């Protein structure tokens, strides 16, 4: 938990929340808004996706809710378009380690994607007294 967290960003998307380098589909996401229009993703099982998200260590950087943290980007409830999501997981640009097909199949990723899309939308900032 050192302040100098460069070394701690071990398994994260390069485009971290703190740096503001989020992909467009995420960075413009406003609380309370409807999800951005995205190309259709394969049908996924959100419950199985949650299990995969935890068992494969995704939560370690992105948190259980996919809300991101010091080591990983926010990827829920509006993940990037599915094809880009898959491409990134297979060949990440930053510190995140790659997940190969034999570890997470395309269907597994669709399940994880469904889990991320199922996460609750945040309340509007203006409605949260503690953030005023």
């Amino acid at each position, binding site marked *: *938990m*050192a*302040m*100098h*967290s*460069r*070394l*701690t*960003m*071990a*398994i994260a998307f390069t485009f971290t*929340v*703190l*740096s*503001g*380098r989020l992909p467009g589909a995420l960075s413009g996401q*406003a*609380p309370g808004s409807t999800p951005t229009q995205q190309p259709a993703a394969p049908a996924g099982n959100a419950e199985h996706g949650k299990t995969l998200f935890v*068992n*494969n*260590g995704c*939560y*370690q*950087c992105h*948190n*259980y*809710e996919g*809300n*991101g*943290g*010091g*080591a*990983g980007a*926010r990827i*829920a409830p509006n993940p990037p378009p599915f094809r880009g999501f898959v491409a990134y997981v297979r060949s*990440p640009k*930053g*510190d*995140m*380690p*790659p*997940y*190969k097909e*034999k*570890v997470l199949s395309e269907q597994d990723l669709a399940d994880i994607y469904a889990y991320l899309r199922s*996460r*609750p939308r*945040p*309340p*509007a*900032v203006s409605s*949260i007294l*503690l*953030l005023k």
Partner: protein
Amino acid sequence: MVDVLKSVGFDYICANPGSSFRGLHESVINYGGNQRPELITCCHEESSVAMGHGYAKVEGKPLGVFAHGTVGLQHAAMAIYNAWCDRVPVYVMLGNQLDATMRRPGAEWAHSVQDAAAMVRDYTKWDDTPMSLPHFAESAVRAYKIAMTPPMAPVVLVVNAELQEQALAADGKLMIPKLSIPAPPQGEAAAVAEVARLLVNAEHPVIVADRVARTPAGLAALVELAETLQAAVIDQGGRMNFPTRHPLNQSQARAIADADVILGLEVSDFWGAVNSYRDQLSRSSHSLLKPGAKLVSITSGDLYVRANYQDFQRYLPVDLALAADAEATLPALTDAVRRALTADRKRALEARGAKLTEAGAAALDRARLDASYAWDASPVSTARLSAELWAQIKNEDWALVNGTGGGWARRLWSFDKPYQWIGGAGGAGVGYGMPAAVGAALAHKKHGRFAVNIQTDGDLMYAPGVLWTAAHHRIPLLTVMHNNRAYHQELMHVQKMCNRHSRGIDRGRIGSELVDPPIDYAKVAQGLGVHAEGPITDPKDLGSALARAVTVVKRGEPALVDVVCQPR
């Protein structure tokens, strides 16, 4: 000896009792009246030193630590290394019995050593083994002076048992040298003028601050320089360098890539500040600098470097290096900047300042938006934890003495006083947090400040006995657990290796998690005499638990609230 300790101004001695310093121990509590210094009972030597580490960063001076020269120092070593890396004056006195013919059979032999300080000599600034009481007096004062001269660092004095237990010579007088702390070295005048010229002529100057503010004056001096220049400041948080909500604070922005002049002030890893490092299938890095960017460093770190331990970080070529104390140099640099400013440059600076102010406001808005995600999640988000805690303490005269809740406290809270933050461990040695927090809270106690610790769970498990020390000595401190039930950073490293080899990715948590059974930190704390609640998993329960804990701390006692959190 106690007269010597009193003469240099020790307010406290932290110690786990040990026979090799029984003479000193007894002298402090009886001859010295257990006042200035007062003996603080510790349950581990690592706690004693880490308490001294946290204390010194608040109070600006060391407390004393007593320990066995052998087994005590072996326990203390990691904490001494943290203080070394963090450039903090920790003052350690080791008991030893050099004369073999005087040793008791058994344990005293195992607790004796030819050269006690050898084990930590690579990461202490000075040590000595005085052979007489006058020698002790000189060396004790010399050690204090050396520890307090930037770059500050731990020192060790080995105090032979015979010396502790023998009476003074017949005249009963001991000459104690006067303590004089050297003025810290200021940057050479011509070099300071050149730095000012570079900064004034830059279009996008950036100041990177790490361990700048040694004293309360450091924060004000950095604010003055930044405002004079209307320059962006990236506060790396090694000390309380710059207000978090100052319009020029650009710590959340990517200012490095746009900078044409970067001034590094006491930056422990300047290379890391201007390069991006990728730890993936292969390790690689690339520069973040734009072509032609000039680098300037002002650091006392250039005045004293050792070889064996590699905390000096990667070598960074700079255009101008001032081997000087940054805080001491700031007033002269600001004056030089003022002298170099023309009317045209002042207008340009005003326009730059307006843009930075906008960017700073946007960063705070972005932080609030980011914090809103997973707001009602269970486990509790670290952003929610930080926001709930801020609501409870913001009207107190507070100081955050350890932890940031995944960085959220620094993003959401308004830090603007010199004592509200003291940085981290320095050497990233786990086990620093809780004892350093108790030491810092001990320093804040006499000022009546409300000390807050955001405590990670793995760190607490190193030496939780320091909670008893806080309870026993009535040290007010609010500890809020950032409990992610793992040595989480290490978990991430193992996960990375699992991925790299594409085998057993689902087993990455083995060896790093703290589950089955989950540790009940509230019960641990209660057993050590500390008010405690938890584990709290529903964020809606957090505010009321914190409010009850605040009440306990305000009556002068420690309290702990265990919060089960999202990992980061």
